[in-house]
């Protein structure tokens, strides 16, 4: 995943033949739910997972990659175009065959240079043939898929700025070294981080649709179950994967079905949503939009035909907690504030 030209992909695939099954993750319901909802409606705009080490953040993201339904894309297209006419003109694609491929989940490693993120001059061709050509970067590969940033809070500022810009416009523009290239870059941003190691700038926080906080389960039986499943996954991989495959498939089918549903949002629900955001003083309108979208995706996932206050209050913490003004004394965090206000406003 996400290496240079992945010289280590082989070595990696030898051990990690298949990622840990999504359905086998113990607990962490909020995180799992948030990820499923972005799979239903990518326009919700990504998930930020904040929490301690060893709580299964990375495991969940990698599991999600295996869970996601396949996409149809032109074979060999560097930006995973869905149709032949969408292929950017700089790309050297000769075949026009549409193939199914897994939804891309691209890792953005810390300390990735700007060149690697946006793409840059193809050094190989410049050096050996003296040609100017564009070599696509990680943003191109992540188009129509997921971009995963582990330790998002340690990301360098200039890369953050760049990501914000692209995430907003859905397009990556490269104007350097005499190149002028643009290509679509629409992706779901998934970030994870440990709040002890530095905080995220509010601008970047706001770009994530949902945010969830994870912590280790306190329940001893649950903890033992986590270790047991991990152990089974590592020692008896084949049997373990077989046992969980059906559940993963069922979940995938539910996601596919939910995508086709378009639950109605009645006037009353929209009003309640606005009132809630107003009462919380959430900055900007993005919170309201995200909350409504997330509630709708949740309703679709549950097979409901209408978005109700129940869906709103279920999604309010994840959609709003990172958009509140921070209170340095409030150690309990914004979650309780959102829940309390949601209970008051939505009844």
């Amino acid at each position, binding site marked *: 995943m996400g*290496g*240079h*030209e992945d*010289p*280590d992909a082989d*070595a*990696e695939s030898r*051990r*990690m033949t298949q990622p840990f099954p999504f359905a086998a993750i113990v607990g962490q319901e909020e995180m799992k739910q948030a990820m499923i909802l972005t799979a239903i409606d990518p326009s919700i705009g990504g998930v930020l997972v904040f929490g*301690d*080490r*060893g*709580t*299964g953040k*990375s495991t969940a993201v990698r599991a999600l990659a295996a869970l996601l339904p396949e996409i149809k894309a032109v074979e060999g297209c560097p930006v995973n175009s869905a149709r032949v006419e969408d292929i950017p003109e700089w790309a050297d694609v000769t075949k026009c065959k549409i193939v199914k491929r897994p939804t891309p989940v691209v*890792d953005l*490693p*810390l*300390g990735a*240079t*700007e*060149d690697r993120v946006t793409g840059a001059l193809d*050094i*190989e061709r410049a*050096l*050996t043939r003296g040609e100017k050509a564009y070599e696509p970067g990680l943003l191109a590969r992540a188009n129509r898929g997921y971009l995963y940033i*582990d*330790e998002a809070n*340690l990301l360098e500022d200039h890369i953050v700025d760049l990501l914000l810009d692209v995430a907003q416009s859905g397009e990556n523009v490269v104007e350097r070294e005499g190149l002028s290239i643009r290509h679509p870059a629409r992706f779901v941003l998934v970030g994870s981080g*440990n709040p*002890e*190691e*530095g905080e995220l700038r509010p601008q970047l926080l706001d770009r994530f649709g949902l945010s969830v906080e994870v*912590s*280790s389960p306190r329940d*001893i*039986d649950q*903890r*033992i179950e*986590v*270790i*047991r499943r*991990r*152990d089974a996954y590592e*020692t008896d991989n084949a049997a373990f994967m077989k046992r969980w495959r059906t559940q993963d498939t069922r979940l995938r089918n539910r996601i596919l079905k939910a995508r086709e549903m378009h639950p109605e949002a009645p006037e009353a629900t929209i009003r309640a949503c606005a009132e809630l955001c107003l009462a919380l003083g959430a900055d900007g309108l993005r919170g309201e939009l995200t909350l409504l979208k997330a509630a709708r995706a949740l309703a679709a996932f549950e097979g409901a035909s209408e978005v109700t206050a129940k869906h709103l209050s279920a999604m309010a913490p994840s959609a709003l907690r990172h958009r509140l003004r921070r209170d*340095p*004394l409030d*150690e309990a965090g914004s979650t309780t504030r959102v829940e309390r206000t949601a209970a008051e406003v939505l009844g």
Partner: protein
Amino acid sequence: MISPDWRRAERARALLSANPAALGGLWLRARSGPVRDLFLAGLTAPLPIRRIHPTISDDALFGGIDLTETLASGHMVQRGGVLSTPALLILPMAERTPPGLAARLAAALDAGTHALIALDEGAEAEEALPPALAERLALHLDLTNIPLGDARDIPAISARPGPVAAPAAALSDLTKVALRLGIDSLRAPSLALHAARLAAALDGREEVAEADLILATELVLAPRATIASAPEDEEEEDTPPPPPDNPSEDQSEDKQNDQQKVPEEVLLEAAKAMLPPDLLAQLAARAAARARQASSGAGDKQRSVKRGRPLPSRPGRLDGTARIDVIATLRAAAPWQTLRAKASGQRLAFRPADIRVKRYEERSERILIFLVDASGSAAFSRLAEAKGAVELLLAEAYARRDQVALITFRGTEADLLLPPTRSLVQTKRRLAALPGGGGTPLAAGLKAALELALTERAKGRTPAIALLTDGRANIALDGEADRKQAAEDAIAMARAIRARGIAALVIDMGNRPEQALRALAAEIDAPYLPMPRADSARLSSAVSTALAE
């Protein structure tokens, strides 16, 4: 006679040699020396061993285009990096690992292809391996206290690790012990289980036995402990272990695995024996280090390749993060031109080794936030003297080009009297006109100072708070005149300041040193100076140390 410490170290080495990738690796705390050399010499790994260093570049890690070869041969030559092929990495000076490298290595460890031995030579408790790596390395070992005489080579045990069954009880015991030692992460019990399995395999057992679990607890769980089990902490280590029948929650809850005696207590004893006596002190230091590291993201960074005061340029490569120093590069290439011209026939020939990159030193600006108590009690005692002390500090700050800000608290709230400025005159004027009287809303003052400090830090400055008060807080955060609540709020704010790693200094301007204020200073982790003894020289030196971080 082989000392138990060395024997344990030797076992750790054997585990690591058997299957480094499953364990992630080893965090070895030891100064460079014969003991460490002896330890490392006995390492036999199934993976190739490669040394890396904390400033290793991405090129060396991931590989890339070999410029020299490519240019010479006219076609693309790729060079593999350290992470391209599975290896056991040895990282000396691991305490200096920057977070970026830690994250990259962590990703490699997660992929399960690599293992890492982090040689931590940290002298102070604050210098330690980045938590992202420490978390993923199963074995934690400290060789610091092993005398050379104890360290003798033991012939390595060579057993072929075969499949080892782990009884369900072993799994749940390790998990429970981890929880009782205050280890939150679930990676720890998982790694401990791996270690126990390997230990059993080395001894030729087919099932994990109690001895294996004890070894795993000693090597994996005990060094990660954050509490010395059970609610009572520190004192417990010195006293003999409590009788095993002390009623603990999870024991009564679970249905007791009734085979023999549950080794959970045995494991806890093993872990306790391993805990250093000054556990809590170390934890505090570690937490402080973490906070400081975290804060360095924006403000305190010393070296930079982008901006700041220029430093002499250094040989380097153009990896997109540094800027080339053209003059220095030309100068480095100049002596070789005749020689190179003969070889290549080019007018001007450069080699990658000629490249010099610019370096800069970035000094983040400091800001000293004065938090002055202007309540009635303070006004009557020594507000005037406090003003004098502040002026003294101001002069100091001015000389060092620090910014200053002034916050006062009286009545029910705190006021930002002077936003951050460098103007000495303005500060003095505001200070002279400082009115006194009213209650002491200490918590509100601390809160205002903390908020300002965080804002300033976000701007890339390094904040420090100087608190001048008589410490008799009597107004709570919500403005109520409730002495008890006020004291609690003040303590809570103090902890918040400490948690964010902001340097501070507490000056007691009461007539008599106030015990509560001393306690408050301890909560902030700040030096406490009672004014009766705080002459000008001591004051300014205290401020200098508080700001010197």
